[in-house]
């Protein structure tokens, strides 16, 4: 059973020579007949298939198209050509703590964030204690988020995120969170997901983590797949590309 099928996906960004964002600029641009723009292919003919239960790594330099691909998988962006099929429910973590409100308490934020990730209040209430235990923030549950340190906020976000039980998880640079001990906790949690048979797409610059977690990986460069297959080989190619 395939979890994700990506078929010849391309995404083009148009970068206008002069960016038009106001009515005034549209009118001026129309009168001067300014329509020239540069094209940038963030992704070009990307195809791959993931089986259910696979942990798949995506690596590449900054600007290689990793995040664009994740956004397309999460249905936040639409591809210009090609198609993406995702079976089952997807939890996308393209940034932790999306929608967190600094004015609200940690408790309210956990419920808000859960509902953004698509789980109901009943389920969230069941997981509530587990979330705060994992984040190690039990004594701060009534504190407003604006009084949290950024590390605490991220821990709370990650703890909420990992307690959402969906079939497929898209993880974009989630390990850039917390200290070493907390990072280890995160990796353990991701390993737990693997054992439960969840499909995981993992984007990271932490090559050691990619090596430990993923059976297969893909290397992107300028929006194209440079290599795809066994993680060890893909990482070697990436290192060759960098040097």
């Amino acid at each position: 059973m395939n979890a994700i099928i990506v078929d010849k996906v391309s995404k083009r960004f148009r970068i206008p020579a002069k960016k038009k964002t106001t009515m005034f600029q549209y009118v001026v641009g129309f009168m001067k007949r300014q329509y020239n723009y540069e094209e940038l292919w963030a992704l070009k003919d990307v195809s791959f298939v993931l089986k259910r239960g696979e942990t798949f790594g995506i690596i590449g330099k900054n600007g290689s198209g990793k995040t664009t691909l994740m956004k397309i998988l999460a249905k936040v962006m639409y591809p210009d050509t090609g198609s993406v099929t995702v079976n089952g429910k997807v939890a996308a973590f393209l940034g932790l703590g999306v929608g967190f409100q600094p004015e609200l308490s940690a408790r309210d934020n956990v419920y808000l964030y859960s509902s953004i990730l698509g789980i109901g209040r009943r389920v969230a209430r069941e997981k509530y204690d587990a979330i705060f235990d994992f984040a190690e923030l039990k004594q701060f549950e009534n504190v407003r988020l604006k009084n949290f340190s950024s590390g605490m906020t991220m821990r709370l976000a990650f703890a909420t995120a990992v307690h959402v039980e969906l079939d497929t998880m898209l993880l974009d640079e989630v390990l850039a969170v917390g200290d070493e001990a907390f990072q280890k906790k995160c990796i353990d949690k991701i390993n737990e997901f693997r054992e439960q048979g969840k499909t995981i797409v993992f984007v990271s610059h932490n090559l050691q983590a990619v090596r430990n977690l993923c059976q297969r990986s893909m290397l992107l460069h300028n929006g194209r797949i440079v290599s795809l297959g066994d993680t060890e080989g893909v990482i070697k190619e990436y290192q060759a590309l960098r040097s």
Partner: protein
Amino acid sequence: MWQYRELIINLTIVDLKKRYESNILGFVWQFLSPLLLAIVLYIVFKNLFAQEEFFAIKLLVGIMAWRFFSITTGACLASIVSKSALVTRVFIPRKILVFSTALSGLISSLFEFIILIPMIFVLLGPVPATIALYPLIHLLYFPLIYGIGLLLSALYVYVRDLNQIWPVFLQMLFFLCPIIYPLSIVPPWYMTYYMLNPLTRLILIYRDVMIVGKLPSIEDIAVVIGFTALALLLGNYVFGKLERRFAELI
């Protein structure tokens, strides 16, 4: 949208909390500012329209009905751009952001109107029984605002000076509605067009129901429903078309 009802409720609550918690007087201001505006306008215009019956309370009802439109469409306009993280980093139907903003506007407005009822009692004596219909009229008003909100929020992603243009448009519309002047001063040749404005109809309906004790006419309701249908169709269509590139443009 039904499966996202919890998210809609949560976002609406967050919106309301932000609106009222951030300042000390909170909800008091919500009512005080239209009241002060009404008092100023009353002092200015009371000699001009002295013959008009219940001028003060009509002014107040008109301002309240107007505020529902102007404040909520303004809030909807920014609802996509100001919540950019929810657009670019997670998949939720984007209409939810507009809907929850409109919903919190509806709730605020309901409270404003509830406070209005004792004031009518003080100024007029017994309140007409038709006042019971007023929540229904609010529910008729809401989809019109939501439809316009969808249209504005989607356009604002592309055209960023819309937040300058819309208040000017609102200012014009304010004077095209019978809020600060009675309907009787509108020239007859212009009346047919004037009455095509759904906000004019709504303001008249509110006054009929809350002050005069008269049921709204079929014609009033028909104009409002017609414009509501148009706003919803156009709003949904434009939003659906423009939505695909939101994440790139925000």
